[in-house]
């Protein structure tokens, strides 16, 4: 069952959060040019193909899950790519492995677990999330 805040429209919710990510130049290029299947190499040992995309989302720390000091409970993020098992997002804050996050997108909410985080620049972290479950949000 969705909570009161979740029942607001995605648009209203995301507008209430500040966008604090500082996209790096290479990321801007990525979002402008990358289409089709994301490049990878053998060393990355990926299980599924990733598809680059661009979209905004809200990340939310799941109730009772561990949280490092200073981490915001709810924040605005950018979806970078999607695969069958995971989602890559760009955030302004660092997330730690095994943290559980809810990723709210316009039409679905994903239950995820942080696999890894890499810093790309100031206020810019690339976070790999493993999808544990999802919930489709139906338009009212």
């Amino acid at each position, binding site marked *: 069952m969705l909570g009161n805040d979740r029942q607001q429209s995605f648009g209203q919710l995301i507008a209430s959060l500040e966008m604090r990510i500082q996209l790096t130049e290479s990321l801007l290029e990525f979002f402008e040019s990358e289409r089709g299947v994301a490049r990878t190499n053998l*060393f990355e040992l990926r299980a599924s193909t990733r598809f680059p995309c661009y979209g905004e989302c809200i990340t939310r720390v799941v109730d009772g899950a*561990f949280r*490092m*000091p200073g981490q915001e409970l709810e924040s605005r993020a950018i979806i970078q790519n999607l695969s069958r098992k995971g989602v890559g997002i760009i955030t302004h804050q*660092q997330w*730690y*492995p*095994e943290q559980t996050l809810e990723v709210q997108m316009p039409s679905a909410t994903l239950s995820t677990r942080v696999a*890894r*985080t*890499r*810093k790309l620049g100031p206020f810019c*972290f690339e976070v790999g999330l493993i999808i544990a479950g999802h919930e489709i949000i139906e338009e009212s």
Partner: protein
Amino acid sequence: MLGIPLIPISHLTLSSLFPVGTDVYLRPKGTKDAILFLAADQIATEEALELLAASKDIKLFISQKESQKFQKHLRDNFDLWFENAAVPAKNKAAMLSEVIRNVLSDEFTRNDTHSIVDATKQLGVHVARLATEKSLTGAELCQILHHDYGTFTHSGNVAFYCSLLAAELGYVNEELAEIATGGLLHDIGKLDIDERVLNKPGMLDEFEFRIIKEHPLGGFRRLTKVNEATQVQLLMTYEHHERIDGKGYPVGIGGNEIHIASRICSVVDVFEAMTSNRPYRGALSLKQTLAIMTESVTQAFDKEVFECWETIVSSRLGS
């Protein structure tokens, strides 16, 4: 004694208070044969211990077969030793170092994270207490510790060094113990790495290096599953390969984004690795190690933390 495999022990692990529990042999420098020095139930006299301390040419040994018995003896008597004010700090450090190697060897082999964290917590308290003993200098500690590189020895040494450095930087009591335990746990992620890669004598190829670089992440994952691991210990495990210039791994954070305990661990981790014997090279001297580390200090380390460590260990360079 010919034909019986012997292993060396430190004379600092002997006491005039208790029997050692195993036969102890000595071998003066230049001689082939070891001779019985103490029978298992004998207690060393003060005079004999003083002689051993004064002589650099006499080495002590026990039978390799009795190694477990010797370790058990140390563990059983450890608390008694540790609480005894008459036992000098350097003897306590030598004994604690042996106990740590033994406990970590057992626990890491058992590979149960809960049990590892539990065992290291108590050891961390002892390490922290020793670090604040004014009579124990950094130079003495470097001399006492084993320098054969292996995950148990390395982790034990890093814990000693971490707490010495943290104490110098002003940390006390619980915080110090937490950092010491963090030092013991910082490489726990290596338990997930194939020993053939971990102990490879030559250069690692790109694929093997990528595997090695997974250990901070693996260690962090392990510790998140254990309630007893503190946030400081989690971060020391996760961030000890981060660099101050942001070019480290696994995340690439830099400067003050790296927790202070991780910055401490990073300095002593590199120092310990360089001053230890590796399969492909001998231990570097303190002077060589500090010179190499100084060259990369602004890129790799917190300058203030490194300079503090340099002060702690460089007292030995003149001697």
